[in-house]
């Protein structure tokens, strides 16, 4: 057993931290709320090789695993950096797995082409239907419909709140054919019948798009059910990884302030109310980290457990970041809740993140569903 990062992974993480440290992404996050432009970090991603992280070496990528990708996203999350990897990485994983055209894969790997994953949530033990993100409300939307004609496929449907869709060159959308069987289709952003309405909500660093396909044509990818499912859970894991990084930074900032700020003659970190809350952040952070390792391991070594692992990771990360962000504000007192302070940027990140891609509540439901399905086959 060796359940720790390899030296290469530690290096990858440190390199990511270094590369992202050169831009003040936190200040940019605030300015973007008032209409400022976000720094373009795609060149950084290209230079660091993150664009090809999940593309095999044969196709010009780094051929790394989900864990490596999550480590990079954790560093992005730590400084609230907006890099469109949450959309690109699951899309490239699908394309690589499907053996998409080598030329395109090469361009995706080197970042000349940027892809975005237009997700569908796999069915579960209660309802086998694949569904899409609705614009609003508790009822999930039907996944886009796909009509196949050999390699060609025609897609019709609507998916809301798609991460990193605006500006992507290639959309990898998961829909269902007339039998309800899931199919992934690669659709060029400029294809007829594709509309991406750029939007954002609450956290200006998070680029989102409402994507509409109106008989748009693309290329169907040859993928089995497990491959299609894994993209959804990979996206869950990547989003969660961003959360873990944000928690780490929030905890560091909270601890620093708790040592410096005095009230009633003592540093506030000496009071149990503060101290116990910050150890709770630590507890959640370390639990999240363990689940991140689990998900990273399962992606490669136990794909049957990956849905469980990634969903649990998402639940832990979502809760941890919400808790850590509120605590970051609370430790700072009133000033922590003002526009000029950085703490609200973590709060915004926390609130939006846990509502994306089905929301963390959906992930908790999935954890239960996976366990209940296994349990149904096991004597009590």
């Amino acid at each position, binding site marked *: 057993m060796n359940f720790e990062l390899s030296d290469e992974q530690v290096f990858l993480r440190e390199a990511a931290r270094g590369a992202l440290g050169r831009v003040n992404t936190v200040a940019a996050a605030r300015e973007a*709320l008032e209409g400022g432009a976000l720094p373009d970090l795609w060149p950084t991603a290209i230079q660091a090789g993150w664009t090809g992280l999940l593309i095999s070496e044969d196709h010009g990528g780094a051929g790394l695993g989900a864990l490596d990708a999550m480590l990079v996203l954790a560093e992005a999350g730590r400084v609230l950096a907006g890099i469109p990897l949450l959309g690109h990485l699951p899309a490239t994983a699908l394309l690589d797995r499907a053996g998409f055209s080598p030329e395109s894969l090469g361009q995706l790997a080197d970042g000349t082409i940027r892809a975005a994953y237009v997700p569908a949530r796999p069915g579960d033990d209660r309802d086998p239907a694949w569904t899409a*993100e*609705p*614009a*609003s*409300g*508790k*009822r999930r939307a039907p996944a886009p419909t796909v009509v196949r004609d050999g390699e060609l496929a025609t897609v019709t449907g609507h998916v809301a*709140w798609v991460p990193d869709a605006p500006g992507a060159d290639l959309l990898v959308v998961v829909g269902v054919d007339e039998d309800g069987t899931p199919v992934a289709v690669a659709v060029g952003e400029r294809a007829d019948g594709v509309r991406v309405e750029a939007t954002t*909500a*609450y956290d200006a660093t998070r680029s*989102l798009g409402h994507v509409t396909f109106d008989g748009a044509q693309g290329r169907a990818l040859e993928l089995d059910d497990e491959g299609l499912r894994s993209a959804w859970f990979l996206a869950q894991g990547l989003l969660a990884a961003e959360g873990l990084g944000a928690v780490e930074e929030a905890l560091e900032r909270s601890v620093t302030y708790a*040592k*410096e700020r*005095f*009230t*009633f*003659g*003592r*540093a506030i970190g000496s*009071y149990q*109310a*503060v101290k116990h809350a910050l150890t709770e952040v630590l507890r959640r952070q370390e639990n999240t980290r363990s689940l991140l390792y689990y998900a990273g391991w399962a992606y490669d070594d136990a794909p049957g457990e990956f849905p469980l692992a990634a969903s649990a990771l998402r639940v832990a990360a979502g809760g941890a970041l919400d808790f850590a962000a*509120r605590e970051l*504000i*609370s430790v700072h*007192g*009133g*000033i*922590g*809740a*003002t*526009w*000029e302070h950085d703490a*609200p940027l973590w*709060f*915004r990140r926390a*609130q*939006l993140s846990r*509502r*994306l891609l089905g*929301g963390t*509540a959906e992930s908790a439901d999935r954890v239960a569903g996976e366990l209940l399905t296994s349990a149904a086959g096991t004597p009590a």
Partner: protein
Amino acid sequence: MDLNDTPDQAAYREHVRGWLQQNRQHAPDTRGRGDEEAAVEAHRGWQRRLAEAGFVGVTWPAEHGGQGRGPLEQVIVNQEIARAGVPGILDTIGVGMLGPTLIAHGSDEQKQRYLGPMLHADEVWCQLFSEPAAGSDLAGIQARAKREDDGGWRISGQKVWTTNAQFAAYGLLLARTDPDVSKHRGLTMFVVPMDGEGVTIRPLRQISGEPEFNEVFFDDVRLEPGSEVGAVNGGWGVALTTLMFERLTIGAGSEGLGYSGERFARAIASDPVAAADPEVRQRLGALATELLALRFTGYRLLTALSRGQIPGPEAGLGKVTAVNAAIEAGDLIADVIGPEALDSDSEWSYLISFLPGLKSAGGTEEILRNTVGERVLGLPPEPRLDKGIPFSELRAKERQEVGA
């Protein structure tokens, strides 16, 4: 148990309701967000009109321009104003907390000069207590007041979380007049003209981007002799009076924040899938229970007030209940609606952004729980390292520890 009016109260309610019906066309529309200055002027005029009808300072003694009535009559006025869908008064802080403080501790001259214009909103007031380094520990105030030869004063320092400072005529300011005694003992309360030279007001935006509060800077601001309220170095006692009236305002007005199970249920009911979901219902039921409890705790409090009882610090637990239930509600609604609930146009986005700041406004939950634990349950206090030490030494010690 009786939630009905007495015959006297019913008659008073009738009177208020009738007046509002006749005068509601003069009420300003507060919903639009246009020219702030014009909105303040309109609101000022509305308070003046209410004051002339006797509906401002209902519980103030008649000799100071009030009506000398009980707290239930004040509630009746509030309820009828809410029912009529018109705004309340502009200067809730002055009329609710600062005026009563002046009545209790001010000189005859001060009462004569300030109370009337306050009631009529000719002069709006603000409260200048909190500082960046004196929030939970209010007695840690650093703003300095130095006596001049003529008995006047010079004020320097910074205040924060000041509501209405941007259009206030006067502020009630707590400042340190003797740093060489222990921290509660060297404070004095002052009346400060907000247009004085050296006063700078800066809006302080909250998470939502809205400027809910201000920072106020005092740079060697001159006060005339007689500006002190109560005794020199007796400011802590005066401040406690203000805080008691603040507690009354918060306790009795817990629904004033606009958080109710009914409101949140309406948001859920509009999504039939959510309304039938056991998990959503469980969360809604739990938070609505808290908010119902808050409402009826408010009625208990009003009953106590109407009997002349002063509510203890446990009344502050109502804020804890309200804020935490509203956080749960914001969470639930955002879970149901999804990212759209966070869109800047959404009322829920504003609610969600507003709550973290509200959590520490008027004292953090931790400080409140300490106070309630000690003063209501009689639990022993934490060891205090700052007792009896001159304020100046205390500051030096802190700087040293952080440096170490």
